[in-house]
């Protein structure tokens, strides 16, 4: 009789105010992805076609919170993922996008969409389809509870691999100083 198939760990991933660099760094685990896929299956992720996050074991979130849609997606992840992980400098600290925090949002939009010299009849986009930007960029833990943080811009593939293998084998993830980078 064939052994009953072990239930796979379910992982969701998303990029909020991110650059997709943390996802690229995850793909940098290279052929280890095949080993990973034997143990896990992906729920909502930029790498799948699933539109909403369902019940999951692990949620990996890159990017900070910069607009209203980010808040909705993050809350959906928190509500569905047993373990929510802030991946990368943006999710952990707000990251380089948070450098806009000392500028007025109105001035930013005005500069980019109206007064920018190459524009002809510019206007600030106002369609309700578009999520409104927040006045400041925030790290994830200022909006929801976060279980683990992985710093790095991006965290290296080895860092992500160590973290995931620890988690998948039931250990508390522990990164040595050589895997903790903030840059």
């Amino acid at each position, binding site marked *: 009789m064939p052994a009953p198939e072990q239930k796979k760990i379910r992982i969701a991933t998303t990029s909020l105010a991110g650059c997709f660099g943390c996802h690229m760094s995850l793909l940098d685990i290279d052929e280890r992805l095949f080993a990973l896929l034997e143990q896990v299956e992906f729920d909502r992720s930029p790498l799948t076609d699933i539109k909403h996050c369902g019940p999951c074991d692990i949620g990996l979130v890159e990017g900070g919170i910069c607009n209203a849609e980010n808040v909705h997606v993050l809350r959906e992840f928190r509500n569905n993922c047993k373990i929510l992980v802030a991946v990368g400098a943006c999710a952990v*600290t707000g990251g380089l996008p948070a*450098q806009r925090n000392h500028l007025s949002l109105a001035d930013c939009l005005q500069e980019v969409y109206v007064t920018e010299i190459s524009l002809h009849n510019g206007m600030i986009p106002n369609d309700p389809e578009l999520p409104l930007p927040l006045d400041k960029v*925030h790290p994830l833990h200022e909006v929801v509870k976060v279980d683990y943080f992985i710093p790095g811009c991006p965290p290296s593939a080895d860092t992500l691999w160590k973290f995931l293998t620890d988690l998948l084998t039931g250990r508390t993830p522990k990164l040595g100083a050589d895997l903790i980078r903030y840059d």
Partner: protein
Amino acid sequence: MSESFQLDGEDIPYTPGQTVLQAALSAGRYIPHLCYHPEFKPHGSCKVCTVKIASGKSQRTAASCTLPAQPGLEIESDSDEMNELRRTLVQMLFAEGNHFCPSCEKSGNCALQALGSDLGVMTAGFRHFYPDRPVDASHPDILLDFNRCILCELCVRASCEVDEKCVFALSGRGITKHLVVNAASGQLADTDIALIDKAMQVCPVGVILTKRVGFAEPIGERRYDQRPISAQALDDAPRAATGKGRCTSCEE
């Protein structure tokens, strides 16, 4: 070197007049620290060097940079409890400033960053302050980014005690305390600071920067890429003071 005290169960010899931190570093025992610099008098602002002292039944904590070495001291430093407290202090510093390491040219050469990874700091954890202090780019060769300042006063001490120029000072109180430039205009260009000044070398973070030289070192070859701060600090440890301990150019 006949006197000694106990640090994490080991005998540490000391010369009378040394602090616990100085004696530990001289003996090759690392105690994490940020505002202490072997060439200057202890400052006591970062509190990262805090240790636990047991004497009889009572226990208390003290900054080892200002604690005079005494015979019979029993000191606990490298324990989970003390390192957890240090992590919190480093987190407070990260949350207080704009420490965007990915775009900072001091990354890899920054003591705060190196201490963070050495202690296993994964997140600032606290709500970020995101201070908004304009950079001072007035000087032709030097740039100041005040949003990264950890108020260690090393530049203040170096400029006053070694360079005898008193270019820098701290101003304000509480969370509004900040580094200022001692010039009527407040601009660095209106001081006599020079690239060869001691004040240019001592900033442990990315506040005082020389223009046009950033990002020259390849990743992997920067100071703390090579060895962790715990190893580097010991190389720097026993050294003659260059600071005079007081300002010779102003009334301070």
